[in-house]
């Protein structure tokens, strides 16, 4: 299967899930509504296996971001069970919550870089909040910045970065702590198709190193580049499509 593009062949991302391994994320009949509004998600059930790669797709407003926020534990489900790294999250302590978040990396659609910190400081943030000394991570951060092509821009404040540079900085920040699960919300939404494919390769490389990856996108051209499972949201319900 090829997409005929000159850059890449279609990549087969088969599941490596073995029966004994615990899923990284598990949703069971999850329903979610904001306040008294209608249910944004209803009866959503799925698993994310360790070291798996999948897309989350669906039309705008289908609840992709809400589902990511549920996994990120920034909102709690109205009903149903959400487990992350084997831990049921309904009455999780704030210490345990911090512990789980440190095992995840997230790329927001709007990047959420801190404007008063340099690119370097933004990317180093996940390590800094763990209380690590700067000497212990400096080389690592610089190497990653160079890898994503921001080696020359590490002292620049985010407002001076272009959209693509911000995106790469946000991705570098998500990757720096070597997360076990990477969540990305429209990570290629603001970049040209060429850079989009390069970023996708970055995620695939990360996945090959053992990270589970969930990319929320409605870019079908991008999804067609990879043979990966698709979680399709529509009307608040989730369908799983296998390639």
């Amino acid at each position, binding site marked *: 299967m090829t997409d005929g593009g000159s850059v*890449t*062949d*279609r*990549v*087969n*991302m*088969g599941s*490596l899930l073995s029966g004994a391994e615990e899923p990284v994320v598990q949703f069971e009949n999850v329903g979610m509504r904001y306040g008294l509004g209608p249910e944004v998600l209803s009866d959503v059930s799925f698993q994310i296996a360790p*070291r798996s*790669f999948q897309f989350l797709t669906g039309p705008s407003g289908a609840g992709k971001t809400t589902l990511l926020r549920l996994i*990120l534990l*920034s909102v709690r489900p109205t009903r149903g069970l959400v487990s992350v790294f084997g831990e049921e999250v309904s009455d999780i302590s*704030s*210490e345990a919550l*911090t512990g789980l*978040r*440190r095992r995840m990396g*997230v790329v927001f659609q709007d990047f*959420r870089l*801190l*404007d*008063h*910190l*340099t690119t*370097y*400081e933004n990317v*180093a*943030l*996940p390590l*800094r*909040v*763990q*209380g690590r000394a*700067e000497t212990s991570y*400096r*080389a690592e*951060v*610089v*190497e990653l910045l*160079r*890898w994503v092509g921001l080696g020359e821009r*590490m*002292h620049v404040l985010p407002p001076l970065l272009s959209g693509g540079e911000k995106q790469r900085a946000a991705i570098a*920040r998500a990757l720096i*702590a070597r997360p076990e699960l990477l969540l990305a919300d429209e990570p290629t939404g603001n970049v040209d198709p060429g850079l989009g494919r*390069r970023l996708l*390769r*970055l995620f*695939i*490389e990360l*996945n*090959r190193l053992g990270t589970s990856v969930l990319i929320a996108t409605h870019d079908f051209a991008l999804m067609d580049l990879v043979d990966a499972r698709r979680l399709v949201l529509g009307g608040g319900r989730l369908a799983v499509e296998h390639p």
Partner: protein
Amino acid sequence: MTVTSTSRPTPPPPAAAPQEALPTTLRRNAPLVPTDSAASRALAAVIAILTFLAALCAGAAEIVASSADQWQGTVAQEVTIQIRPNPGRDLDADVAKAEALAKATPGIAATRVFSKAEAERLLEPWLGSGLDLSDLPVPRLVTLRLADAGPPDLKPLRAALGEALPGVASLDDHALWLRRLSTMANAFVGVGVGLVALVLVATGLAVVFATRGAMAGNREVVEVLHFVGADDDFIARAFQRRFFRLGLRGGVIGSAAALAAFALAGFVARAWQSGPAGEEIEALFGAFHIGWRGYASVLLIGVIASVVTGIVSRLTVRRFLA
């Protein structure tokens, strides 16, 4: 998972690529919580003003306390025997007898008899000068300076005076006056301590408002810090550091202003010393010295204000996040 060879992701740049040596630190000392300069300046100014007021209260209380101590020390070193003139008695003989009795009492270091002229001069401030007081029954005084080794037991002397000069001589150890003085001084110090406490509470409340404002203004930053794995304590410490610095700045400015105010007051008091007003001031407050204890309490208040600022902001953040 299989990946075709043509679709391998771009590897990291080769190690051989020229790489300049890294500087020792790439982190500026930018605070994690951005500082809004206008709000920060306003809070530092509020803390400076409150510290200044608290330091003034503490310094004034210290002046009163140390002056009262001085008066008490001087007054408690002396007791007075008063001998009233009595028709049919020889006043000078009574005075000599009282002095002899006092000298015989252990613990009395020295005695001084006020002559008739001296006794009359004591009345001058009330009656004016140039009056013939010879017809007035002016009582005579004998002051006794007590030995330094603790206050002696004055009861035997009082009894002996009562026996030898009944109804004529009385012994005044100023106990009533001392009690009143010490009550007044304690009241002043108590009011001072209360005012300092109130001002520190006001500082704390100002910091609570400022912290909540900063939290609301930095909601996005706090959210991002949470998502990248910061726990509540880390975020609270970031706010604490920022507010402690602000508090320190305000505290230093306030304390310095208070020290300057005391120095200026001392200078003015010395400049006026020659005039009558200066004498009154000096009599009341000494030379306007707040002493090392005063300076220490002014500095301590500056430090306490900044520590209170840091701790209150941390607690506020913890409560806000909870």
